[in-house]
């Protein structure tokens, strides 16, 4: 797990050559980078599960949730104009 994603040279040795460690099927997948949005204790384990399950998930699809306002009736959100 890289503590500092910004500097590849500072990564712990455990992350080196990850691509080479992929299974042949995994190598055919488009590479992705996962980022945690949480600081939970299990974040690293979550990542590992995500990566490991990619060959399975890559064949499925996600049905998006609905995440936007349906109407827009309020003109004065708190903290507005601080743009």
């Amino acid at each position, binding site marked *: *797990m*890289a*503590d500092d*994603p910004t500097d590849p040279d500072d990564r712990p040795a455990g*992350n080196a050559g*990850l*691509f080479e*460690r*992929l*299974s042949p099927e*995994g190598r055919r997948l488009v*590479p*992705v*980078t*996962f*980022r*945690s*949005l*949480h*600081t*939970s204790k*299990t*974040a*690293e*384990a*979550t*990542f*590992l*599960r*995500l*990566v*490991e*399950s990619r060959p*399975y998930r890559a064949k499925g699809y996600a049905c998006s949730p609905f995440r936007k306002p349906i109407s827009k009736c309020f003109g004065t*959100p*708190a*903290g*507005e*104009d*601080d*743009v």
Partner: protein
Amino acid sequence: MKKMERIDDKLFRPLATAEAKLVFAGGTQTAVTLVETSNPAPDTARDGDHE
């Protein structure tokens, strides 16, 4: 106007309302990044949040 403006100009401050409302209400967040890995026998019965 210079072609390359300074990034610390007030014009480039984050959208305070949108961020406070939608994203960082829970306090500081730190990203953790993992590039790739592989396990020939993944255990898909468990996930990281429910060990």
